[in-house]
């Protein structure tokens, strides 16, 4: 090994100045990081999707194949299953970073922590929420949901799963570093996600009975905007506490 690398070091030092990189560069950097980590650890995004598919497809076997029964429970089943699938995938949001020490590096990086949280949640949603959304029409047909309600189902899932990912991030940040935090996470997050579940499934049910569902969708959108504004800040604060609680 070349120990006397002073010229190298001198050039390195000269190149580094304290120019702050832009918000977009940080956002892109974290998105790319999460993408690569997930790509090399497929269980992270395949598990929630499989869970969703398996749970929904068990219902026709459990409650009987009668088309009218299935159609009437379809909105609730699809929504409860996607809520649970999102929650299932949330446990890993910050825990891996906590375990390998990169979380404290992120906290100490001097970059905006809410921004980093937002980037992580976005990539988490792209990998766990979006696949649910894409596979939902297939499962809706399986449950005999009227075809006309499928666009509303997808739109409600788009707004709803994104909101759930953001709300869940608060719970994941609060429980970071705790062992076996799954149950606690559910207890923390479920009460907050109930409005999303209620308005999401009622939007689909209304569309299935040929009623207007724009009211429910607008409330879902409002919940999403509220979560988008507050969840990254709250989760970032919780992460700072979580990181400093351990030693």
């Amino acid at each position: 090994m070349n120990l006397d690398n002073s010229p190298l070091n001198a050039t390195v030092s000269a190149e580094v100045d304290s120019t702050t990189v832009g918000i977009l560069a940080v956002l892109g950097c974290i998105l790319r990081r999460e993408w690569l980590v997930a790509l090399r650890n497929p269980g992270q995004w395949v598990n929630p999707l499989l869970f969703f598919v398996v749970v929904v497809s068990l219902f026709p076997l459990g409650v009987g194949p009668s088309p009218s029964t299935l159609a009437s429970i379809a909105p609730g089943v699809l929504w409860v299953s996607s809520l649970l699938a999102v929650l299932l995938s949330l446990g890993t949001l910050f825990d891996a970073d906590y375990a390998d020490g990169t979380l404290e590096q992120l906290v100490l990086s001097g970059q905006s922590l809410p921004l980093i949280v937002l980037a992580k949640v976005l990539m988490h949603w792209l990998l766990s929420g979006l696949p649910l959304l894409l596979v939902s029409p297939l499962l809706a047909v399986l449950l005999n949901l009227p075809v006309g309600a499928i666009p509303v189902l997808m739109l409600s899932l788009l707004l709803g799963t994104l909101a759930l990912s953001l709300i869940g991030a608060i719970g994941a940040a609060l429980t970071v570093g705790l062992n076996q935090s799954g149950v606690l996470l559910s207890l923390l997050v479920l009460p907050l996600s109930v409005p999303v579940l209620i308005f999401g499934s009622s939007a689909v049910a209304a569309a299935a009975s040929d009623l207007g569902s724009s009211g429910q969708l607008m409330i879902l959108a409002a919940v999403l905007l509220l979560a988008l504004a507050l969840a990254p800040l709250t989760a970032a604060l919780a992460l700072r506490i979580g990181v400093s609680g351990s030693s």
Partner: protein
Amino acid sequence: MLEVKGLTVWRGDNVLLNDISFCLDIGSVLQIQGANGSGKTTLLRIICGVGLADEGDVYWHGTPIHRNRDQFNDALLYLGHKAGIKGGLTAIENLRIFCTLSGRTKNKQTDLAIESALDGLSLLSKAHIACRHLSAGQQRRVSLARLLLQTAQLWVLDEPLTSLDKAGLSWVETQIAKQVARGGSVLLTTHAPLNIDTVEVGTLELG
């Protein structure tokens, strides 16, 4: 420039750190010594602002660090007990993330700097292997490569020599000497005696 005043930490009914005070001036090295469990890591985490003290405060250029966190974070390079690298990413990917987060724009120069840092640590041939497949010492080296990629006034190194070989040890000593030569300071814990000719290493005994 770094001043620690009256840090006290309780763990249940026992006092872990009792009224620790010291100053770290420009261009000085302080080695914190103490038995296992004497609170070395706890002390370093509090100084970096990722741990909480029951009493006392840490000052950076006269201001408490929690009031001046942005400026302090810019001036700080913390190498923790955990390596702080993602096992699923390669050394180059890990260091690129570190560079962006520490404020270097992503360009050719940054990539060259990363490559030469890895070269100096004889890791260039392993640069495209996921870090989880590297040995413990090689992972430590990836983590140490950050010392070359950011000019921080204050280095806080928690057991930087863990699982390093002799060549790695003298590499770290060389880097500490360079950091002192350019007016930076180093605060570290290690059980191995440091042997740097040009630098006087202060010590602080805990416990």
